[in-house]
């Protein structure tokens, strides 16, 4: 090997090695800073709903070897429920919408205008989270809380979780709707490309035995794409789990309560980390910050798990 090649190799390898270092640093520092909280909270962290900084005017007391304010407790069951419920609603809405839009764009729109028509769906991916939040706050919430939720709650009053009270508009379903709009482009774009690259011979074979064009899509093309669809939906789930600003602005930021129905206010792990930063900084024992670090660690591990799973499911050609 020439010296210049060896130098080149070492240089690019060193830059590439920064990427694993980033992951290692995220994990190591979050674990280090959440360690006191891990000791103080134990497993109760995941099984109760009480985020309470304690009496901020008392003197710190020692509990399980850690200094905390009297009465303090940190447990985030309500955040886990809020995060999973809003993300699942988002996925339940985004998968049919994304599949429908992809089928329409790939099979019904003439190729000449397809690039531009696709932009109408796929540009949703580039709208910043905080702008989604703004739109949700000034347009979607007034509309839903006046014209949709009251009627929904009335007509579905016997369906568990869908009955009244229909709430203020800030809550679980609104968060789910906005999250679905944020992650639908991922599903629609990937699936559209996959449909477009389906061999033409399969379509012709289907048409030749008398299937309608829609039957070709539903019974021949889509079944072949089941695994990529599962993979890309998992990826979309990962996005929804970690969305912060939009959820912060429209979810109602519930504290320590579990949602009683689909209209109830919630918080997610990500949105709570922003909404609680200011008050956590007031805790003289720092335990509130350690608690936030523990939420961050849990969110990191959850997103690593979901994304690794998605990458293993998505075939290489679809993975970006």
């Amino acid at each position, binding site marked *: 090997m020439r010296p210049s090649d060896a130098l080149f190799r070492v240089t690019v390898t060193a830059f590439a090695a920064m990427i694993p270092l980033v992951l290692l640093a995220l994990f190591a520092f979050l674990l280090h*800073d959440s360690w006191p909280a891990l000791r103080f909270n134990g497993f109760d962290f995941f099984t109760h709903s009480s985020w309470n900084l304690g009496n901020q005017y008392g003197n710190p007391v020692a509990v399980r070897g850690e200094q905390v304010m009297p009465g303090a407790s940190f447990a985030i069951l309500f955040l886990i429920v809020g995060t999973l419920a809003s993300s699942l609603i988002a996925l339940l809405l985004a998968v049919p919408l994304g599949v429908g839009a992809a089928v*329409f764009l790939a099979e019904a729109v003439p190729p000449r205008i397809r690039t531009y028509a696709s932009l109408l769906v796929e540009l949703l991916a580039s709208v*910043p989270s*905080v702008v989604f939040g703004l*739109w949700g*706050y000034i347009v979607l919430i007034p509309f839903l809380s006046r014209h949709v939720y009251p009627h929904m709650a009335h007509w579905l009053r016997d369906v568990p979780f869908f009955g009244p009270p229909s709430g203020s508009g800030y809550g679980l379903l609104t968060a789910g709707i906005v999250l679905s709009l944020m992650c639908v482009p991922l599903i629609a774009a990937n699936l559209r490309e996959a449909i477009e690259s389906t061999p033409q011979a399969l379509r012709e074979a289907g048409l030749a035995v008398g299937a309608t064009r829609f*039957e070709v899509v539903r019974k021949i093309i889509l079944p072949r794409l089941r695994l990529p669809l599962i993979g890309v939906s998992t990826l979309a789930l990962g996005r929804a789990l970690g*969305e912060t600003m939009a959820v912060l602005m429209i979810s109602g930021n519930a504290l320590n309560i579990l949602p009683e129905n689909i209209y109830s206010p919630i918080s997610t792990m*990500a949105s709570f980390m922003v909404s609680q930063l200011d008050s956590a900084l007031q805790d003289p024992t720092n335990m509130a910050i350690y608690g936030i670090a523990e939420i961050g660690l849990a969110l990191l591990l959850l997103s690593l798990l979901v994304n690794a799973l998605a990458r293993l499911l998505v075939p290489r050609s679809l993975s970006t």
Partner: protein
Amino acid sequence: MSTVTGSARALNPNARGRGRQQRRAMASLAGWLLSGLAFLLLAFALLDILRTVFVRGFAALNLQLFLTPTSGIAGGLLNAIEGSVLITAGALLLAVPVGVFGGIYVSEFSREYFARAVRFIADVLVGVPSIVFGLFGYLTMVTALGWHFSLAAGCITLAMMIAPYILRTTELALRGVPGELREAGYALGASQANLVTRVLLRECAPRVLTGILLAMAISMGETAPLIYTVNWSNYYWSGHLTHEPVAYLTYVIWSFINEPFASAHALAYAAALLITLFVLAITLLARLSLSRLGVRRTS
């Protein structure tokens, strides 16, 4: 096989076969209508978001926004515009070398185990929520290193977030270059360093640049990690990398819309318009120039 028997009946028209064929035609029509409806709903959502931002944003625009800094919840946006540009430029300055050189490694040494590991980790990091990066920046740079809320903490945090993205787009760009070009280069006696920098990177420069542009759009639109690392300031940047918070546009949107004053709302709408116009222009430029080059890109 139901489609085959169905079509056999269709070729042999009797009353029962015609009824069945009609049902299938109706079901197909309903399917097309539903998929069209899904498309229309999403297109409507995008257009309504843009309409809201444009109508309210343009109504709030005036020259003062570009000439004065914010004061409390009134004034202009010049300090926030300056801050957004500085934060994004700093993040790109740090992330581009890591992303591009790392992408070269992952693409040109793709058979090595470490290259595959780096690619997988970059893929996974792209999906890690931005707020987690923000928390990391807060715990390490803002408090442990004692930089306080500052430009440097924000830039490094965002750079960590977008470097894996640039790495992946660079890698995909390089992989799109035909293998014959590499073989021809080696046959002429080029070193690998020369081949990559003078031939391959030049060949795929538009796609590498597109990845960098999209990373720029991502960091311009970010809010959550900056709340944790840069905070907010009513003043222009004074030239300090640490120990001094900086203003940025996305903060104005989130924070000022919750104030009960019309002047604060106007600033939030104007900031939303500026950010959306910028991000949209970059994305459209990247996508349309790519489709003209015949390159396909997803998500």
